[in-house]
């Protein structure tokens, strides 16, 4: 078991009222799964993904990740955990504008204390694998959306995480670019055994996954 959510609740207080963002979420994810989360806008998909990614907290319930109980961990430990095992892919790519493609790819490695030569090799490998060697010295603004997202995925993968969390990774892409990214995910999942949880609005993209999770008003349906 990779991770397990038990009776997760998350709420905010607004005007004396408790508004639930997540309500009694239960979820088990095995290694090697490819899960798609779907639901209307505002249903809590991103919130759930962020909770899984440990970027956001929750108010009630239990969360175990690789047999560590995340809800009892200190902030720093939690950061170490996601640093090591989780890669993020964002709808709006979130590349650093001031860094080139190559430097963007290198950054997660810097925070994981890889040696210089090692980093170079890993970055070169990724550039190769994603066919973007020719773009390595360009800045994000000089790339198309699809290319930027490619870099985003490459960056998420570079430190070989166990789990990839992707929040509407194709939201800003056209259908051809979307298909490319989805194929990539599928390949990663099937050939490298990377666990993937993605949020998507498209039935077509969701079909790439092995399991679909539907949310409505913060509840699983």
């Amino acid at each position: 078991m990779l991770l397990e959510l038990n009776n997760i609740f998350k709420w905010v207080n607004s005007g004396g009222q408790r508004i639930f963002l997540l309500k009694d979420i239960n979820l088990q994810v095995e290694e090697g799964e490819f899960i798609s989360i779907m639901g209307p806008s505002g249903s809590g998909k991103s919130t759930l993904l962020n909770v899984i990614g440990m970027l956001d907290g929750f108010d009630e319930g239990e969360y175990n990740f690789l047999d560590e109980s995340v809800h009892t961990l200190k902030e720093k430990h939690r950061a170490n955990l996601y640093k090591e095992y989780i890669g993020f892919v964002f709808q709006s790519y979130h590349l650093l504008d001031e860094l080139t493609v190559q430097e963007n790819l290198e950054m997660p490695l810097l925070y994981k204390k890889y040696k210089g030569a090692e980093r170079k090799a890993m970055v070169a490998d990724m550039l190769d694998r994603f066919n973007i060697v020719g773009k390595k010295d360009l800045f994000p603004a000089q790339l198309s959306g699809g290319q930027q997202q490619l870099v985003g995925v490459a960056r998420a993968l570079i430190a070989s995480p166990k789990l990839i969390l992707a929040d509407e990774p194709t939201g800003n892409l056209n259908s051809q670019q979307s298909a490319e990214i989805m194929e990539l995910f599928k390949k990663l999942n099937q050939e490298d055994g990377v666990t993937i949880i993605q949020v998507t609005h498209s039935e077509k993209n969701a079909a790439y996954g092995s399991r679909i999770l539907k949310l409505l008003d913060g509840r699983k349906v």
Partner: protein
Amino acid sequence: MFKNNLKIALRNILKNKVFSLINIIGLSIGLSAAFVIGAIIYYDMTFDKFHSDSKRIYRITTAFLSPEGDFYNAGVTVPLAGALSDLNMPELETVAPFFTAYPLRVENKKLDFSFKNPEFVIYADDDYFRTLDYIWLAGTQKEALSAPNTVVLSEARAQIYFPDQELTSLIGKTLIYNDTIPALVTGIVANFTQRTDLVFEEFLSLKTADVQDMTSAVVDAHWHNTNSASQLFVKLTPNASKIEVQKVLDGISKEHEAKERVAIGRSNSFYMQPLSDLHFDSNYNTFDFDDQRASLLVLRNLGLVALFLLLLGCINFINLNTAQASQRAKEIGIRKTLGSSKKQLIFQFLGETLLLTMAAGALSLVLANGLLGIFSDYIPAGIDLSLYYDALPILGIVTLLLIVTLLSGFYPALILSGYKPISVLKNEGVKANQRAGLRKYLTVFQFSIAQIFIIATLLVGKQLHYIMKKDMGFKTDAIAYFYTPWSDPAPEKKERFIAKLEALPMITEVTLGGNPPASFSTHSMGVLFQQGDQEVNSDLQLIYGDADYFNIYGLQLLAGRLPLNDTIREYVVNQTYLKQLGIENPESIIGKTFKADDENHPIVGVMQDFHQRSLKTKIEPMAFTGDTNGSRRSQFRVVSFKLATEHSSQWPETIAQIESIWKGIYPASDFEHRFMDDTIERFYAQERKVSVLLRWATGLVILISCLGLLGLVMYTTQRRIKEIGIRKVVGASLLQLNMLLCKEFLMVVGVAFLIAIPIAWWGMYNWLQGFAFKTNMSWWVFVGSGLAMLVIALIIISIRTIAAARVNPVKSLRSE
């Protein structure tokens, strides 16, 4: 990681060029001030630190305590040295008396060379060289000065007296002092290479003075006379207690105190001045009168100015960086999700700050060099940036840069690194107005300081104007004077000079007398006035002259007459003296006498008060008298003359004529004249320096604060560009928009003004207490400076706001 962060930092700095520039300029102004002032402090702090045993060496000096105030003399009474040696105290390793001397001439007969007025000559004995370590280049320290008529020279001096000769060959050669005193060279010592106030070049044996004394200080040895020429250094034995020595000194001064002086509340005490204090202790002179010595107070004030400038630069940095924080929120969020810890981010941002600080540091080295040039009149000649080629100052610079980095970078780094990635990634954006409160406080602080500086500058200027323009009570216009040489008191020559001056067409009046009514030197005598059974002791200042002197300076006689002739001593006293005696009617004192040196002196007249010195001091009791000391010790050695006021363009010519007369009469001396107005200006040299420095500091403070303000305004208008567009679309005018944008900043300036007023008032009130005569602290100075600040701020703000308000709304609304 480092390389990567460096890259990001550089790109960020370049991306925000204007903000980076504001930050760098602001910081570099503060840093360059700190460098210059640091150099001055370092220079002054490193005097006489190099002597072996310097911690054990003291100079004994004398403090005179009296009800009117304390006076200090760097010398001691001559018998003290003998008394101390006779005690053979175990605490004292050496007792080294020496006397400063001013020979008129030194001759090297062999070469037929003659040198006028050599400086830095002392009479000393072997104990001097036992107290202070010199390197002996020829001869040995042992008994070098035991015999009469021997001299030890410094290397530099030896090279002047005996050019191109082997130093060791000089031993046994002879120099003649003042035509009659022979001295055998017994040693050559190396000049000190490090900073020192012990600048002596020639050491004549003390025994020489016993026979032929050039100073008259050595033989003039009794307990009741203290001459600053008579110096005494001692070296304590290791571990000896300074307190024990002080006790003995106290005992000696008690034993020899004069009863008359004790009766009027006066006493003197010996003070042990550590060698390391020589350079700073403004109570006591050092030996090089041309040297501008630092006072700790001045250094402290300069330090404060540098500190303020630095602080203001740091504030700009904090303000601009927290204001811009939201622009970097995205980067922070991404970095955090990629695994950066808060600590790593803090270091990253501090690194960026360090980079900017170092850029500012490099720039400020250039600026500091410029500052040193601009202020060369205010700064001791030995100071330049090469002082920094040393471990300690470099360490100082590095520390300063690190402190500045922390001060300006830590808070923004903390704010930035504190952003939660989730809120950034959710695309909520960071609330732009976060920390606006803090920025307001900091800006208020900046402008309060700027405001205080403006008020201080105006008031100092006003006070200077007031005291320089205030009537001194005597005439100064077109009056100049010069001193006839000490060495040549012959009355015939003076008379001849006067006669020739009178013949010059541009000179309307000439007189021979003493010092001008206001001068730097004071003569005074203690006098006793008896009225019934009441006795009044006073210290009466003296000026010397005749009726011409009285006329040329326009002194006013209120009662009685002037002294009749030079053979009997008669005195004209001033009103302040009458006041001190409690006498109302000037007429009633005529014919009375006061007592000085057990002699009765008649008072024949009363003159109107005038200012005898700067307006910092009160008018003192004073008397005017003739020249009664005989020609050899005549007080009449100053020639005062008045030039024709309507022909001031021809004055330089007249002065040149006077100089050529001088050359004819006193060929051996140099001519030096001074205008009375310049003398009065010189009373306020210190204040004028303060005023100039203050103007500079104020300019810089305003510059830094306005740069910061400009940055904030730029940021705000940038952020509100859309709002401005919308308002414009619905019909707001340019003026309305400008007011809207200016309002919050003008509020800040207004609050700063309110804070500044009481502080400035209090500070200036205290400063003015240093003057006996004070200008008004007029309300208009405060209001005027407030308005000035407001106008400056308004201009700075409007540069941006008007530009922003003019932007075509279609443009600003289309973006996104």
